[in-house]
């Protein structure tokens, strides 16, 4: 069947936009994802990640722009797109009263997977997520991590070209999160598949080939995690002082450095951070309690491009959401 776009691209998005009344949840984003790539959307909650993924999965209709997924337009060829993508949502969509393998087989039925080779595929995807031994167990008896693994396996049952993972590890403990990532990385090695994921965890974004940082419905920057960090070229310095206000004024006056107050520490970026520390003590006339210098992380990348840390962004968006019950409702859909 002929597709509508460049077949070497798994995802192609042009000026995609989604408005809910006055709110621009996604405000004109454009990007491309190559076949076989692992691409991450990194941003705080409410930045427009889930809305974008919903549009790419044909679950929400864009109010502007265009998106082609697995070679088909997400508005005009919905069924063709759906056949070629796998979806793992934030909230579980398994049937608790069915066994693990029943959930997967029912999925295969819904997606019209031919029966030849079905049993082998079932075993393959379940072994990939380490659940083959539990195939006969009722999903009701599974832990949160097992359910998420099972959903990933289910998303793969029909051998999709693109697997969408919307916050694949949200709500799981750190150990389970790293387990899930082991499985995802193994999956990347074993299958020729494009993975599109959203996350608000910095460490998870490190797993991606490329990431797009999204904030306020817009893409701020797209590149490989290494390039993004290298581009900053400066170290991150966090200083705890007796008088943060005076310290920030001093940094600007003496060194011309713009600092921000983040999580109780005066934070700024400077080239050669470790060599800078002695000067800091000599010239900043504010009592310093502690200094921490670190190589740039994705957190710093986020901060460099948006002027705040992702946790601060989360906190302010949580306040906004609390103030407006409609935001929650809109997100759930």
């Amino acid at each position, binding site marked *: 069947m002929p597709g509508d776009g460049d077949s070497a691209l798994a995802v192609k998005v042009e000026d995609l936009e989604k408005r809910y009344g006055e709110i621009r949840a996604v405000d004109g984003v454009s990007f491309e994802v190559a076949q076989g790539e692992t691409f991450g959307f990194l941003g705080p909650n409410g930045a427009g990640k889930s809305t974008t993924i919903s549009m790419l999965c044909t679950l929400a209709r864009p109010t502007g722009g265009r998106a082609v997924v697995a070679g088909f337009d997400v508005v005009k060829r919905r069924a063709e797109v759906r*056949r070629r993508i796998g979806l793992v*949502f934030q909230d579980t969509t398994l049937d608790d*009263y*069915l066994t693990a393998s029943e959930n997967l087989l029912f999925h295969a039925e819904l997606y*019209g997977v*031919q029966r030849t*080779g079905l049993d082998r*595929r079932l075993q393959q995807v379940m072994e990939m997520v380490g659940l083959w031994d539990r195939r006969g167990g009722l999903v009701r008896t599974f832990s949160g991590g097992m359910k998420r693994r099972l959903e990933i396996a289910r998303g793969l049952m*029909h051998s999709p070209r693109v697997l969408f993972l919307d916050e694949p590890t949200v709500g799981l403990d750190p150990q389970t999160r790293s387990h899930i990532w082991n499985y995802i990385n193994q999956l990347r090695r*074993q299958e020729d598949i494009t993975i599109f994921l959203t996350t608000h965890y910095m460490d998870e974004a490190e797993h991606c080939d490329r990431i797009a940082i999204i904030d306020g419905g817009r893409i701020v920057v797209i590149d490989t995690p290494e390039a993004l960090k290298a581009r900053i070229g400066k170290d991150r310095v966090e200083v705890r002082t007796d008088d943060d206000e005076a310290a920030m004024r001093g940094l600007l006056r003496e060194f011309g450095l713009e600092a921000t107050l983040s999580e109780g520490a005066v934070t700024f970026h400077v080239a050669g951070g470790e060599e800078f520390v002695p000067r800091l003590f000599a010239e900043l006339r504010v009592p310093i309690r502690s200094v921490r210098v670190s190589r740039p992380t994705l957190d710093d990348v986020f901060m460099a491009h948006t002027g705040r840390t992702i946790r601060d962004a989360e906190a302010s968006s949580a306040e906004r959401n609390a103030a407006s019950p409609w935001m929650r409702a809109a997100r759930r859909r």
Partner: protein
Amino acid sequence: MTTTAAHDVAAVRLAGGAARDELRAVRMVWRRELIRFGRNRLRILTSLAQPVLFLFVLGTGLSTIVRGGPVTSGSNFRTFIFPGIVAMTVLFSAIFSAVSIVWDREFGFLREMLVAPIRRSSLVLGKCAGGATVATLQALIILVLSPLVGIPFSAPLLIILVGEMVLMAVALTALGMVLAARMQQVESFQVVMQFVVLPMFFLSGALFPLTGLPRWLTVLTRLDPLSYAVDPMRRAVFAHTTSAAHFASISPGLSWFGWRLPVGVELGVVVLIGAVALGIAIVQFNRPD
């Protein structure tokens, strides 16, 4: 990029999106209903408790006051309400199955079905078939009790009753789907029970003959879809008892403005209501979210 030569990916092929795929989807949704029903022993048990209470406790208790009336013995009163109780079993089970789609919505599985590359109408049809099958199975269990209320087993009667039960079950499940389509929360189930299911049951003539009633009640009973399902079953049961003529005299059945409805017309009404409800349900579930 991390793509190596795709190792040993078990190849699966997707079929072409034809009618066969839709049928498979319908069958899957149907099978899921049956599996869930079969695993929920408690639901089977609770759903049987109610008809048994109605039939033997209410039936026996009330027969002491109706004895002076046209129904001359307790056994006869239980015989009279038996088709109504079977209909009640179908009604409750069908509506419950249909409304369970609200649970599917709450716990996410509905989303898994809605994002699949299949028509929404296939989901509605599968759910309807599943709910109707479960409802018929439950009513079949009640049917086994018929000798205890003075209705001898007979193959022709059984075939007629099962056929009528299937029709009724499909129509009621479809009706339930229409109600469920707009329901967002599990709590609404109580509302449906109080304002739809119970009125339908009481107005259907399941417990009393639909003749000689005050005008307002007569009108309401004729508007109740369930009336058109209970009457054919009652006729079939009466025809197979020893005192058929006696029953016919106390419960001459449904009429429109004095016209005694033939069974064919009654069943036609049931089929029509079912078809219309199914159509509405499909339209409702086809709406983009």
